[in-house]
């Protein structure tokens, strides 16, 4: 089982603990065995322990410690946002956020929609069963 995602300059990681929980950051430098210098368009560049990061599949092409402008340009060029939001991991996180922000009324509407969908599926299943037995 070789490793597929490496810590390298330009690797996009997800912060999984702390003040910036849930943010996508770019590893712009490695400080030592345990820490990396990370940067994101909406935060001040700073150090973070690798334990707080979860590596993703996305990598961008940057030199070591670029300035903010270059970093943002590189992120745009690689289209990180869309790649992330279309990946299954990214989509899962979006769904989780949406579910957490649901209103009581929204939850009710979803319940109605689920029942409706299940009803339609059951009808189709019944039809298919009839066809196979007939």
């Amino acid at each position, binding site marked *: 089982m070789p490793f597929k995602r490496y810590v390298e300059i330009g690797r996009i990681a997800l912060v999984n603990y702390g003040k910036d929980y849930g943010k996508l950051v770019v590893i712009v430098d490695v400080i030592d065995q345990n820490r990396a210098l990370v940067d994101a368009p909406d935060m001040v560049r700073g150090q973070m322990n690798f334990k707080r990061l979860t590596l993703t599949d996305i990598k961008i092409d940057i030199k070591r410690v670029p300035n903010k402008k270059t970093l943002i340009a590189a992120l745009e060029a690689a289209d990180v946002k869309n790649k992330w939001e279309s990946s299954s991991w990214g989509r899962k996180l979006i769904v989780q956020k949406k579910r*957490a922000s649901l*209103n*009581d*009324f929204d939850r009710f*509407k979803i319940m*109605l929609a689920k029942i409706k969908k299940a009803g339609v599926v059951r009808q189709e299943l019944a039809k298919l069963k009839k066809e196979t037995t007939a």
Partner: protein
Amino acid sequence: MLGLGQRFPPFHTAFEPAALHRSYTTTESMAPKDRKPHVCRNPDLIRGVGKYSRSKMYHKRGLWAIKAKNGGAFPKHEKKAAAAAPAEKPPKFYPADDVKKPLVNKRKARPTKLRASITPGTVLIILAGRFKGKRVVFLKQLSSGLLLVTGPFKVNGVPLRRVNQSYVIATSTKVDVSGVSVEKFDDKYFGKKVEKKKKKGEGEFFEAEKEEKNTLPHDKKDDQKTVDAALIASIEAVPDLKSYLGARFSLKSGMKPHELVF
């Protein structure tokens, strides 16, 4: 004292204190709008230590100028002749033990503070009582602090009713209540009717009277209908809202109240 008069003209033209321009007869209450907010004359360097010394402050306040205007002495008002207090007779009775006076209580009773999330038209979830779990529409807060809510009655069976704010979850769903007038409802409307006690009739008489009084008077039913008519119209405008209000709320498996957004 004479030396004071010599000092004024060359030194103090730059320091004209405001005191010279104000007349002594105007008080704060007479023309509050004309005054500009006064900047502190003696700013704090640190807490407890002003920038200017006592003698400098005396000069800044213009007390020297007020005195000069008044001929060397600070102007005094004559003491008002104190109204002769009526001669108090010594009391006839002194209590043996000191009687304690109750402490002064200047608190005013006012209705409970309404949560910011509760505004007219908010859908509330009632948590206790006969209608627990029911989703109702909030109309207004009464003077006692209780909340006036209605089902509407046709939708979920909750009539015009008072509910305590503490037994209610406010959702973020709002219903349009602009067409509803709730002015006539107050705590007295909901109070228990005072029954005239009739001790003469006992046994059968009593039971007959009780049965009569259990039905709602017609005017209350009409009030319910008028309030609900406008409400139901605005409820039906929103899809699924009517069935939402008709359904009861319950916690299902996996729902964590502290994580739920209502």
